[in-house]
């Protein structure tokens, strides 16, 4: 690693905000950089004057690159991978850290290939200390196995960080040095034509703003049984969420889905009712501060991540819980 070496983390702007997972990736980048004694740079596709760039979570980075080009206003894999490629050529980081989002999954492998590299994706753990090659842990077989990886050869090491694997740092005050980076892009390089994102249903539900979530899974058996869980949510003042199968069946709208293909949430309390805890779901909620699981199978994987668990028939437990909550609230 040359002296010019650094860790470059790319942030993602979503819903006019720098997403929480981006800050988690930043925290991961710091962990890596601190272990190796390297500086951290941040990059984001944004106008250099974007006020979002003033508030950086965590330790101040060495530099913030604002990658700006009209061809990047709408995300395309070709546009982003080419722009990022140019920045990496320019900044020559030893490590490139990205948040493991759908967008990153779409362009990062393409970007890495341009460098003859392979993305180490969906990393859940980093071990880095001076003088040794860092190892990165990721999950195999849908979470049933962990594997540690090492980067070999020269060239930048690309990695993406799993949501919830690292805790995002708080925003710290201080000024940041923003450097505008203008890539040279040509419209002919971009062959995909993206349309406007749209929601399947008109109603907007923001699971992220709720401090308590009551989430329902396949254990509920039939759509007609949902009111049992609804009542609990109402009693708790909580939002209702669900695992993928419930939404696939149309019993609850897609926007209530928590999981790898739904929302990633980190509420104060997450109550999983009749959810087995398949990895695709766990990924979406394991960042919750307190996880409660109610399931009739004591061996359900959800209990591995739960803080509190009740093993039994949810059709008996949930009504009892609703009554107890009402009583406690007076």
């Amino acid at each position, binding site marked *: 690693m040359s002296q010019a070496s650094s860790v470059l983390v790319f942030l993602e702007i*979503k819903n006019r905000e720098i997403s929480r997972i981006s800050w988690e990736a930043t925290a991961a980048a710091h962990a890596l950089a601190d272990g190796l004694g390297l500086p951290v740079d941040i990059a984001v596709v944004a106008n250099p004057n974007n006020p979002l760039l003033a508030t950086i979570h965590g330790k101040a980075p060495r530099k913030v690159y604002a990658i700006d080009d009209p061809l990047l206003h709408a995300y395309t894999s070709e546009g982003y991978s080419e722009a990022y490629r140019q920045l990496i050529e320019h900044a020559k980081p030893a490590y490139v850290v990205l948040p493991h*989002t*759908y967008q990153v*999954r*779409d*362009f990062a*492998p*393409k970007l890495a*290939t*341009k460098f*003859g590299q*392979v*993305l180490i*994706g969906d990393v859940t753990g980093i071990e880095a200390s001076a003088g040794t090659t860092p190892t990165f842990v990721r*999950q*195999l*077989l*849908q979470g*049933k*196995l*962990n*594997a*540690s*990886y*090492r*980067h*070999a050869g020269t060239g930048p090491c690309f990695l993406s960080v799993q949501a919830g694997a690292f805790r995002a740092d708080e925003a710290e005050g201080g000024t940041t040095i923003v450097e505008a980076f203008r890539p040279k892009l040509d419209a002919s390089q971009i*062959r*995909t*034509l*993206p*349309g406007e*994102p*749209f*929601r*399947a*249903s008109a109603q907007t539900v923001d699971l992220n703003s709720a401090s308590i979530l009551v989430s329902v899974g396949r254990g509920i058996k039939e759509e007609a049984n949902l009111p049992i869980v609804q009542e609990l949510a109402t009693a*708790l003042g909580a939002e209702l969420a669900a695992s993928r199968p419930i939404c*696939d069946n149309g019993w609850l709208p*897609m*926007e209530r889905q928590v999981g790898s*293909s*739904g*929302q990633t949430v980190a509420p104060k*309390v997450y109550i999983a009712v009749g959810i087995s805890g398949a990895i695709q779901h766990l990924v979406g909620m394991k960042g919750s501060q307190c996880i409660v*699981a109610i399931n009739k199978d004591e061996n359900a994987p959800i*209990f*591995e*991540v739960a*803080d*509190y*668990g*009740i093993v039994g028939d949810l059709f008996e*437990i949930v*009504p*009892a*819980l609703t009554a*107890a*909550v009402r009583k*406690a609230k007076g």
Partner: protein
Amino acid sequence: MKIIVAIKQVPERDARIRIDSAAKWIDLQDVEFMLNESDAYALEEALLLKEAHGGEVIVVSAGPERVGQTIREALAKGADRAIHIESPDEMALASYDALGVAKLLAAAIEDENADLILTGLQSDDLGLGQTGVIMAELLGLPHASLILKIEKTDKGIKVLRELEDGWFQHLELPTPALLTIQSGNTKLRYATLMGIKKAKTKEVRRVTVAELLSDEPAIKIGEPVVLLEKVMLPNKQRTTQILGGTPTEAAAALVEKLQFEVRAL
């Protein structure tokens, strides 16, 4: 339309997880194999397109001899022919990184000049989710990932892409293109007896990794840049408190915890 579907044979979902002696993978004894889940959806999309617009569906897969079974299944479901990149033993492909595997697949299909190449979103075993995107870059094709629906247009294709949090997006691309397909959107078809019988007569072109590399000197598979050092069973991250007793008792205990320990009520 000429459509190529890259499929992978993976260990069955509830294979018993025992780490093998080299600690680099699971012990494969008594493990059964099946078609990767999102690849099944990719194959289904390809077959639907063929049924709507005519053409040919070719499946390609890399792996040892046992992969032949999954290839036959794909042929039984309606694919027209197959390419099997045969690796000599169980662990041979493990020595390649994702870039290496993608190079093999790309080399095997390059001359086919397909209109569309489909892969599953990610594999159920390694879960990298990259092979398709890397192949697109190697072949110089536009690509899109997490695709739920494909429509043929005059200029190419229009696809429906899944975004996070219940958002979706349409995308238009010219063909030839590569798409990685998300699971769950279409109804899969089951393999029928008639399909299996017909599959017996369909062509499976076998090419070994060595032959492929010597046939296509342009592909240079270098040393892997990402190495899997070892696998281990995950640790339980937190201790779980199981609240017992009757439902009423357990509910009361939980409410107490939520009130006083978690302070959420």
